[in-house]
């Protein structure tokens, strides 16, 4: 049996699968992260426990931040996201399903808080929405970081985070 063709085939498959794994890895890991932060369902904020050595949701978490995460899902249309202001650094960032950080706004640009409407790229923008952000994917993660390096600030951030909104526009629109 001529084994040369099998070796060449194995090498060709190795090259193809190498690039396939590299391309797929961020999406697979984001998918895991999306599932982890959508314990109570999509389109709602989850205020994360204080980062400790037991925190295992996301790699390399910073213990200096209070995190709120929302896995957004645009399959029912646009999603409204608001971030309540905080007395120190805070930011609202959006991540596509391939892990790209495609949007970020912080307290320097939004001193009194942020309100955005996330729509799927290429879809019509809702009328009256003040700031529309186009998401390159139908699902992703919104993350609020509030600087809270000690327990007192973390507890205060937990109170502030209750005012944050992550909800589909359809669920906020009263039925006619």
């Amino acid at each position: 049996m001529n084994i040369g063709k099998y070796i060449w085939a194995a090498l060709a498959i190795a090259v193809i699968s190498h690039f396939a794994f590299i391309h797929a890895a961020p999406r697979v890991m984001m998918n895991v992260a999306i599932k982890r932060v959508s314990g109570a369902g999509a389109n709602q904020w989850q205020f994360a426990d204080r980062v400790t050595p037991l925190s295992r949701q996301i790699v390399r978490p910073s213990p200096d931040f209070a995190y709120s995460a929302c896995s957004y899902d645009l399959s029912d249309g646009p999603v409204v996201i608001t971030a309540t202001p905080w007395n120190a650094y805070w930011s609202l960032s959006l991540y596509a399903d391939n892990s790209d950080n495609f949007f970020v706004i912080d307290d320097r640009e939004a001193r009194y808080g942020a309100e955005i409407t996330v729509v799927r790229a290429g879809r019509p923008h809702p009328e009256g929405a003040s700031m529309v952000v186009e998401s390159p994917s139908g699902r992703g993660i919104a993350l609020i970081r509030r600087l809270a390096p000690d327990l007192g600030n973390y507890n205060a951030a937990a109170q502030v985070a209750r005012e944050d909104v992550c909800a589909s526009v359809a669920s906020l629109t009263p039925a006619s």
Partner: protein
Amino acid sequence: MLRRVLAWMAAVLAGVALGAASAWGAMSIGGASFGQEVGQWTTNRATGSTAADPYTRAIVARVGLLALSSREAIYFNLDRDDRGEPLSESCIYELTGRELDARWWSVTLYADDNYLAQNSDHAASIDASHIPSGRWSARIAPVRGDATYWLSSREARRNFSLTLRVYNPQRDFRPNEETLPQLTRISCAGEAA
């Protein structure tokens, strides 16, 4: 015929296994060496960016998922001491630095699994809000001793690493060997003084 079918199956399996192993290797080994070296630290301005190449994306997904783009924050990693050795719990280090041209910064210690070390010291991070402006120095060791600022390496074992986060860097922020914190190994257990 059966031998031929088995040979093709073996070729496919070997190819997929080789592809998976080389991809994992690129993400693991590449994680330690990707990006730009700035003194003892490494950084990659493409982190989190929509312009990141597939390898950067894959490496960041493994070691820093949900990182911010460099417009908002710059991340620097350090996993070797000033003698080029991997960082170890059995050694004592000194990290010295000075004010950075940024709104806020922190240095956090991570075990080699990319999570905080499994200890109850509450000393995983030092940050700008607790350190006065000017020059500063922090000890990295399993015990605090007489240090004012301390990063606990207890239970971090071998191959732990540091991440420097620089938030809202100013326009004239120029990271280089002088401006970024510098790590010096003081001693290691069993090492002749």
